[in-house]
């Protein structure tokens, strides 16, 4: 793919990315020749079949999985391991179950705001927890929250450290489809305010369209790469009502379903 953006606009740059897992029967190439540029303040969703290497790609961006070849840079400098410039929201909420909602968010906030006062740090945690609708649950243990509420804490935790890039790995995949819709609204509302560059993996075509500026379609592995990209032209801020009633909505939907079915 051509480099279509001015270098100064690029937040995240994946160049010729490759991932190989050695197996008993020789090397298994998960991804190869994968190129993707993501602009500042862009929201990109990634769809593809199970096992196509979406999660591998995201975990390489997060720095949790070494790169076999190629390069990943953020604002022009190559990443080295994980860091608080990239916030991750996982499919399983991955909270510390013995800590409260506040304490879970505070873990990250403490790391990146060493220069803030104790009160300021507490305010940051409270601010984000209330943005995701958890005013009443600051001091509840993570283990006592429903899965949907735990995922809300996960969203608050990721935004609270003000990352440069937000990485979301099917964050709502384990929720029922109605709770999922609710949390999409929570996510997009907080994102509208912060405009953090976001890369999100999803299985859900409706979710991919509703949230994204661009939907990236990955081919099936092995040697997965980017098969196609769909620009979503809806204005922001979006509401679900205007999006699903837009004349283009079901065309976008058909385009993506066709890609997945062939």
């Amino acid at each position, binding site marked *: 793919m051509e480099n279509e953006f001015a270098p100064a606009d690029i937040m995240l740059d994946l160049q010729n990315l490759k991932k190989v897992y050695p197996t008993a029967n020789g090397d298994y190439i998960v991804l190869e020749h994968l190129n993707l540029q993501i602009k500042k303040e862009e929201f990109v969703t990634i769809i593809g079949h*199970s096992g196509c290497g979406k999660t591998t790609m995201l975990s390489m961006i997060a720095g949790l999985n070494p790169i076999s070849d190629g390069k990943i840079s953020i604002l022009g400098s190559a990443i080295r391991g994980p860091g608080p410039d990239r916030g991750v929201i996982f499919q399983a909420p991955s909270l510390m179950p013995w800590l409260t909602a506040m304490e879970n968010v505070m873990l990250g906030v403490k790391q990146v705001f060493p220069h803030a006062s104790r009160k300021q740090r507490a*305010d940051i945690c409270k601010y984000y927890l209330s943005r995701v*609708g958890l005013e*009443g649950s600051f001091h509840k243990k993570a283990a006592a929250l429903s899965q949907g509420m735990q995922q809300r804490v996960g969203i608050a935790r990721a935004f609270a450290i003000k990352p440069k890039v937000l990485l979301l790995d099917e964050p709502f995949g384990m929720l029922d489809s*109605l*709770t999922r819709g*609710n949390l999409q609204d929570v996510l997009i509302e907080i994102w509208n305010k912060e405009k953090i560059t976001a890369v999100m993996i999803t299985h859900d075509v409706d979710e991919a369209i509703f949230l994204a500026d661009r939907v990236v379609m990955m081919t099936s592995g092995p040697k997965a790469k980017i098969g196609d990209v769909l620009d979503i032209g809806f204005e922001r801020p979006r509401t679900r009502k205007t999006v699903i009633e837009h004349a283009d909505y079901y065309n976008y*939907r058909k385009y993506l*379903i066709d890609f997945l079915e062939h």
Partner: protein
Amino acid sequence: MAYLELKNVQKSYGQGIGSQSVLQDINLEIEEGEFVAIVGFSGSGKTTLINLISGLQEPSSGEILFKGTPVSGTSHERGVIFQNYSLLPWLTVYQNVWIAVKETFPKKSKKERDDMVRSYLDMVNLSPAIDKRPKELSGGMKQRVAVARTLAMDPEMILMDEPLGALDALTRGKLQDEILHIWEKNKRTALLITNDVDEGIYMADRIIPLLPGPNATLGPEFKIDISRPRDKTELNDNPEFKKIRNEIIEYLMKIGHENDSSNESLYLLPDLEPKDLRWDFSSKLKLS
């Protein structure tokens, strides 16, 4: 007279002050041959509703009539596909289905029963796993055994409690088609509980939302006026599909947000930028 009728059904758990009302003012009529889907949020009492209709539980007040007679206890006429599979762990896949067939069709010959068990297990693609026990199966496979077991009993009314939730999209689509096929061919009546609006529109004649609990009750119904057989890929271009899908989604989202606290934060965010830890963070962190 409706085939299945629920009149002012109310269900609460516990006694006295501690009693918790789950369902309230449930009124529902299903005609013979109809396919009705109930769409609701987690924890709204969907499973309780299925248990009441199947006869596994009794309503605290109100009445449930099946073909004009009050429901008392379970019956082969109403088959349930449970969300938690409810297989017998000490029996094989084959035996789990066979035991249901034997109970329902005591007069059939051994050979006929064997044929039935095998053909339904084949329908759900479980022939290779026929001698496995439930603990050796994945969640999706267990779900398929449960579907085969209920359909093999050929009940007059098929009650389904989110039966396909744990399956991947391909298997899910296939089983939707199998359930529809049996419902249409044998002229059965069906009640499906689901959280998937698309599944409801694809399968049902009517969709009724179950509003969030406690005190859950049924919302206004949406009629699905799309001719059968329906085609999944063509549905996306069908104006009626788009219209009804949007109406239902908007309705459910509105209901969902009524339970939500406001998104306006009472707290002020301190004007601070995070420390750029990128470089000293990676060097401190030893990745092995």
